[in-house]
């Protein structure tokens, strides 16, 4: 029994192994929200990894979560990339959030979904890029796995937004966002190094 379980763990990379194989991260980046940092296992966003953000519909404040981090990265002269955003990233609002627009690269939605995965992979591997935000038309565990490897190779942060439920996603951190009266409800569905399922409500002024 144990042997076959071991074999299964070894052969299937999609199988999440929880805390048993968890090595604590050396580094993490503050999310800019104290309540959120308190419940994240590393005390902030992990680096060199991908984070999956699930929403029911766009416009509930999913980008607000990242603006302060994007501002910090761009001021450190690192590149940010937005791939296939479903709306025009609006320059005046981004300036207001403190983002240096000359460090923000935007790649338009592509006809071929394969190109989205390909460009995200290339940019995550690049040393000059700190963060890649990707709006995925259809989450694919295999693709996410590939990008996870790319992110750890380039020590950059990949953030995926999508609106469809995805089973068996290998992303080490998965968040479900919902709009609420106070602002944003964040449900941490999965976090490497933590068994507990947390829910945080952030007061996001939009």
């Amino acid at each position, binding site marked *: 029994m144990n042997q076959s379980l071991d074999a299964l763990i070894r052969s299937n990379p999609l199988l999440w192994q929880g805390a048993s194989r968890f090595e604590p991260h050396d580094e993490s980046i503050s999310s800019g929200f104290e309540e959120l940092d308190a419940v994240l296992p590393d005390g902030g966003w992990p680096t060199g990894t991908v984070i999956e953000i699930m929403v029911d519909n766009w416009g509930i404040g999913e980008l607000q979560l990242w603006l302060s981090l994007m501002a910090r990265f761009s001021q450190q002269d690192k590149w940010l990339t937005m791939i296939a955003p479903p709306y025009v990233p609006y320059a005046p*609002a981004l300036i207001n959030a403190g983002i240096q627009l000359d460090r923000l690269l935007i790649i338009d939605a592509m006809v071929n979904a394969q190109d989205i995965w390909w460009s995200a992979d290339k940019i995550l591997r*690049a040393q000059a890029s700190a963060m890649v935000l990707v709006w995925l038309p259809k989450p694919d565990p295999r693709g996410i796995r590939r990008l996870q490897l790319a992110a750890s190779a380039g020590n950059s942060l990949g953030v995926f937004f999508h609106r469809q439920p995805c089973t068996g996603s290998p992303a080490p951190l998965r968040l479900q966002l919902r*709009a609420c009266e106070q602002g944003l409800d964040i449900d941490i569905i999965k976090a490497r190094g933590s068994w507990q399922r947390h829910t945080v409500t952030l007061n996001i002024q*939009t």
Partner: protein
Amino acid sequence: MNANLNIAPKFTPAEFESYVEPAAENLSTTEHIWLCICFPELALQIPAREQGMPFAVIEQQKNRHVIYAACNIAQSQGITPGMPLNAAYALCRNLRVCMRDATFERKKLEQLTRQAAHFTPSIALQEPDALLMEVSSSLKLFGGMEKLQNHVRDTFPEYDFSLSVAPTPTAAWLLAHNGLEKTIIDKASLKSVLGEIALIDTGLSMKLVEGLSKSGLYTLRDLWRLPRDGLARRFGVSLLEFLDRACAIQPDLRRVFIPGVRFKVELELLVHSDSAHLLLIALGKLLEQAEEFLRSHDAMTDTLNIELWHDHSTHTPLPIRLQKAARQAEHFLSIITERLDHLTLPHTVERVTLRIDQVLPYAEPHADLFDKRESDKQDWQQLTELIKARIGNEKIYCVQTIADHRPERAWQYCSIGKTHNNSNTQTWIKTLHRPTGLLSQAQPIAADRKKLKFITNAERIEGGWWDDNDVCRDYYVAVSAKGSRWWVYRDLKQDNRWYLHGLFT
């Protein structure tokens, strides 16, 4: 002598010495030696020419055609340059003629500079048909004047030419142009050698030559016998200057011709194929040659012209333009790989050509051992180029703000690295509440309107008559039924209807 000494401070010491003591000057390396090669038949080297037939090139002169140059066969029948065309036809019925093409001659001459560049880097063009080469510094390398001349003669086996050497370019050209193959090193003997040249063959204007001949002056020697001041008064200073330049009394400066650097290679494919893999192998070979060429010229390029030939007449062009010039074959190849993936070829390819028309001087990327930023920047540029090559130039960009109160006009696309930071605009924007996502086209929301919960008061945005895009809208932030924060407006100018314009994402 006194007058000369007065201006002495303008000379460098070495020049001053050689100036005051002309007797002591030797053939030192600082003295220039000009070698002139004159190709009298250059105009006849037209590719369409029929071999074995009398052939002449004509030019238009005051409403009539005259012979500009004639081949040996035509000349043996009595046809000479300057003869009217109808007179030439009278002498030779089957004469083939062709209009003179000055740009062709110039091109041909420029091609010849390539071979001439083996001997010296200082080459000047003497249009229409001669090359001037400054060879004083090449003598040692080629083992003396005689051996150098032999080398030069062997370089142009397919042309008839005359070659002469003189201390000034004008003198060298005068000798070569008149077929006098002489080597003159000593400035003092210039006058006596050039003296016998007829004025009509000196390249002076016809009007001037006619005027001189009316005074009984036919050769250069005749002019040298005349007093200088009188000659200048009657025939102009420019004639005197021409004579002085020929005899090295006045400096004779020439503009050095710098050939345009071009590169073209082609490769015949052994197997006619449209497989990207085989094409990449072929292109890889060509790109390696290109890199070698660029390295040897200490250059780089931002444009590669690749053509995939399907047969003799049809080809698919594959131009590669880079944001930043490079010369590494590897970098070019990675971009071409992406381009090939998206290219559909109508037929199999039998030949591949690669052309570089323009090169830039190579600039070493600034490499600092402790500063990784610069090399990251290089990598980033190469990466964005790679992405551009795959998904298209227009799909990858940056955005910037513009000072305009209308939301859809307050931003703009811009190419990477060209973002303009307008600090005035930025302070003004800080006072505004704007959504992070804007719809490229505002959407009408007639049905959803009733379910919206408004959370701000109206912000009136109005005006724009000056560019025919007048607006009058009341903007609100509202929460939709599904919890999204919308930026909606009511169009007060046109139809009073409600529109969704942005999302507070």
